């Protein structure tokens, strides 16, 4: 069933190209979602269901949502929701997603996923490794997240301009 | 009794400490009593030791006291050893006795000076160091005294520190003598590395064993020692500091720069006679230095107009006699002249000090005159001193000591007629300038008012010194006059007797004595006539020789030459290098770094995307490199 892989790969690439070429941020983000989902599918195909799930949940879910939140907070004047919901926005990502869906269905319909060389690596295996030999790394990752948290919450405060110098005169525009 | 010898130098130090620490709470009277008292007791102790040596000498005619271990190392033991023998005692007696008299004189002379206590503190310190110098039993201790007296000389020359020129003279004295000190220091190092000891007695004992007569090492050591002596004793070529040293108070000139410190060089060579005897050529160098010095300094003394400078040059000249004597092996002769010179030169300086004080601090002899009647005590004592200096026959101690030197020079295998003629010429010059001094200061018409007469204490000291100068020569009388050799006999235990006297030379001795006496007397009389009669000849001579006079007035141009050849180049060198050339290298490195920084920082444009391009390009380059391998 290699052809499925190649189709998904093609979808990924097309979506990614659109991410970097699309002038509108929101469109780009939508294409990015597609790209992520297709990568997740590839993970699934090569016997890594756990990371596939993570890819969907964290990448396509949490992180993308963050991006959208930011875009909302920035609140571009010309980019209102109506603007966002125009057909043209939907077209590209929609087509890609549809292709993706098709491939997924086809893939799952194949039956038992794992054959040949690829062995499915179960989530429990990953978990055991994570909390076994990689324990220290996990803790470090936790620290990293914590520092990310602290850093972002500190950076966000701009009321008093405490972090950076005040823009001087006409530079700000 | 000899174990108490440490008290001799210790007492002046105690005096110094008291005077320094309690300076504010002591009245001038108490300070003077302390200063004179400590030195006086030292003098009494020294004389007692001499008496002891005469009646009840210690074993080997020397006594050593170890006060404490100074630098005890495994390979070298330096102790704080004081040692007396005949030589040390002779020196010490002059230092303490003359020192005491000068202290006494100063207690009156310095009255009214606000730094009275400080003056006596320095003076006591000087006496202490000088005694250490002559009583030291090893080179380290000798250096302690040697440099210590240099310090005191510095302090006392610059005693009136508010005048910059005094400070200059003081520094000049210290630095010039220090050049000699370095020579001495190197001599000490050489002795140590050759002989492995710094103990004076051991050095003298070992040297003849280790060094053959005429060996190069002995020659080098002797010359280095001579270098030290030359610096301290203001001999050519390091004599330039002494005339300037007259900036100090006059008692200081009397004590340090006439009677005692400047004779340290004589002491050093006499003490190290054993080494010098190993190198006859070095001895000849000593004699040559002495001869040239006595002539040049004598000429310079002829034309000076500052009374103290005349005396200073005459001191240099007389020290030249002592060096000449040392150079021909006339050890006792040198020391005899040292003794008589100490008396009469101290006398001359003190009398000159009184003259200066009497005339509103006027030092120029051309503005003096006619003091004979107004200051009779000064006149007679000064004349006594000058007569000794000129070595007037029979009645003065200077005659006997100089005669002894002349005679020794004549008969010594190292001396000879040439040295003798130079010495006799020097004697003539001495007679000329001594007489000139008397004539200008005490005769003729008065040019300055007398404002101040010497007090009782000053007069007492002057009279004592004058009497002693006149009769003191009796301790050593030429053979044909009765052959009295008290000093030589006394010294014989420490240094070899003077030049052996071949029998049957009485006639020669008589002739030489008569020649010398005639020349000296003739010189004196000629000068008296020249200055007393108002003859036009004097003016003529002075007109004809004005260039020479200027040359001599400047001390034969030594000062100028040194200034041009040594001082100015070094000052120039240090000035152009003030900011440190090596640091310049660092500054070059810094400016290179800074230039690089400016060049590189232009690449930092603040554009994020360009940085990203840079990073990508770098990664690409690395990947291509990996592919190519």
């Amino acid at each position, binding site marked *: 069933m*290699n052809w499925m892989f190649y189709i998904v*790969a093609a979808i990924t*690439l097309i979506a*990614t*190209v659109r*991410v*970097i070429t699309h002038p509108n*941020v929101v469109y780009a*983000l939508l294409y*990015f979602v597609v*790209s*992520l989902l297709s*990568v997740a599918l*590839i*993970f699934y195909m090569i016997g*890594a269901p756990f*990371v596939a799930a*993570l890819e969907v949940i*964290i*990448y396509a879910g949490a992180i993308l949502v963050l*991006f959208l939140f*930011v875009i909302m*907070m*920035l609140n571009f004047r010309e980019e209102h929701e109506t603007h966002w919901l125009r057909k043209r926005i939907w077209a590209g990502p929609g087509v890609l997603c549809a292709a993706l869906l098709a491939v997924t269905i086809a893939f799952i319909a194949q039956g038992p*996923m*794992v054959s*040949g*060389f*690829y062995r499915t*690596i179960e989530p429990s295996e*990953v978990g055991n490794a*994570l909390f076994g030999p*990689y324990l220290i*790394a996990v803790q470090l*990752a936790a620290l*990293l*997240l914590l520092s*990310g*948290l602290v*850093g*972002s*919450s500190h*950076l*966000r405060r*701009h009321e008093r301009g405490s*972090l*950076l110098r005040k823009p001087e005169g006409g*530079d*700000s*525009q | 009794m000899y174990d108490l010898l440490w008290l001799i130098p210790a007492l002046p130090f105690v005096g110094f400490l008291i005077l320094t620490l309690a300076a504010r709470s002591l009245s001038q009277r108490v300070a003077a009593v302390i200063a004179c008292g400590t030195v006086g007791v030292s003098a009494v102790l020294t004389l007692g030791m001499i008496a002891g040596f005469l009646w009840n000498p210690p074993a080997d005619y020397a006594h050593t006291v170890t006060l404490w271990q100074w630098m005890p190392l495994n390979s070298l033991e330096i102790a704080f050893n004081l040692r007396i023998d005949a030589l040390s005692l002779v020196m010490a007696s002059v230092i303490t006795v003359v020192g005491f008299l000068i202290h006494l004189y100063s207690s009156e002379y310095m009255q009214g000076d606000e730094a009275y206590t400080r003056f006596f503190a320095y003076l006591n310190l000087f006496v202490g160091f000088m005694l250490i110098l002559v009583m030291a039993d090893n080179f380290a201790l000798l250096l302690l005294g040697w440099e210590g007296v240099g310090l005191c000389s510095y302090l006392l020359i610059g005693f009136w520190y508010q005048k910059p020129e005094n400070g200059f003279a003081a520094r000049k004295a210290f630095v010039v003598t220090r050049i000699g000190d370095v020579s001495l220091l190197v001599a000490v190092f050489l002795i140590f590395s050759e002989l492995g000891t710094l103990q004076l007695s051991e050095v003298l004992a070992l040297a003849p064993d280790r060094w053959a007569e005429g060996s190069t090492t002995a020659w080098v050591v002797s010359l280095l020692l001579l270098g030290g002596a030359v610096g301290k004793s203001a001999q050519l070529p390091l004599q330039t500091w002494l005339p300037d040293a007259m900036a100090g108070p006059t008692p200081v000139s009397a004590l340090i720069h006439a009677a005692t410190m400047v004779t340290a060089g004589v002491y050093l060579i006499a003490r190290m006679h054993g080494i010098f005897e190993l190198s006859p050529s070095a001895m000849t160098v000593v004699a040559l230095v002495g001869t040239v010095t006595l002539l040049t300094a004598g000429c310079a003394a002829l034309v000076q107009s500052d009374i103290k400078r005349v005396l200073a040059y005459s001191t240099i000249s007389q020290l030249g006699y002592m060096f000449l004597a040392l150079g021909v092996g006339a050890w006792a002769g040198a020391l005899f002249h040292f003794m008589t010179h100490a008396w009469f030169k101290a006398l001359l300086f003190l009398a000159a000090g009184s003259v200066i004080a009497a005339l509103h601090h006027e030092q120029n002899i051309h503005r003096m005159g006619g003091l004979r009647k107004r200051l009779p005590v000064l006149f007679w004592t000064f004349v006594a001193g000058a007569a000794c200096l000129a070595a007037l026959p029979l009645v003065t101690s200077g005659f006997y000591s100089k005669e002894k030197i002349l005679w020794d020079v004549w008969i010594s295998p190292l001396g000879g007629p040439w040295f003798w003629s130079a010495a006799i010429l020097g004697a003539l010059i001495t007679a000329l300038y001594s007489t000139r001094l008397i004539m200008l200061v005490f005769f003729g018409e008065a040019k300055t008012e007398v404002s101040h007469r010497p007090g009782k204490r000053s007069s007492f000291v002057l009279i004592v010194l004058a009497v002693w100068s006149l009769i003191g020569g009796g301790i050593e009388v030429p053979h044909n006059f009765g052959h009295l050799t008290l000093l030589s006999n006394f010294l014989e235990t420490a240094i070899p007797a003077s030049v052996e006297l071949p029998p049957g030379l009485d006639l020669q001795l008589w002739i030489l004595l008569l020649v010398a006496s005639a020349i000296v007397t003739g010189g004196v009389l000629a000068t008296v006539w020249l200055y007393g009669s108002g003859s036009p000849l004097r003016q003529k001579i002075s007109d004809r020789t004005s260039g020479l006079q200027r040359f001599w007035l400047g001390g034969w141009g030594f000062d100028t030459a040194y200034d041009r050849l040594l001082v100015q180049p070094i000052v120039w060198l240090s000035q152009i290098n003030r900011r440190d050339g090596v640091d310049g290298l660092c500054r070059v490195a810094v400016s290179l770094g800074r230039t690089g920084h400016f060049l590189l*920082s232009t*690449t*930092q*444009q*603040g*554009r*994020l*995307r360009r940085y990203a*391009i840079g990073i*990508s390009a770098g990664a690409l380059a690395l990947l291509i490199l990996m592919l190519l391998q």
Partner: protein
Amino acid sequence: MTQIPLEHGLLLASALFTLGLLGFLVRRNLIIMLVCVEIMLNAAGLAFVMAGAHWGQVDGQIMFIFILTMAAAEVAVGLAIILQFHWRYQSLDVDQASTMKG
């Protein structure tokens, strides 16, 4: 199902990475640039997982998880910076920010 050759997976990963890089270099919108960084990270993760799968090892996935963690932290900080940036320059044009030049 036959295996997908490792090379093909890696090719895909590298193509993704290059695209991300291209976007990062070309676009001036900060948000897009951040997204491009995410693409690159994702590509790296893909490569890890591919390799892990190829050798049947769990480590590839572990690495992916760490990359994910890092990406999350990075996005959090990056977005905060974008907010700050926007507040300061009233724009998302990265070329506006060029005051840190030497």
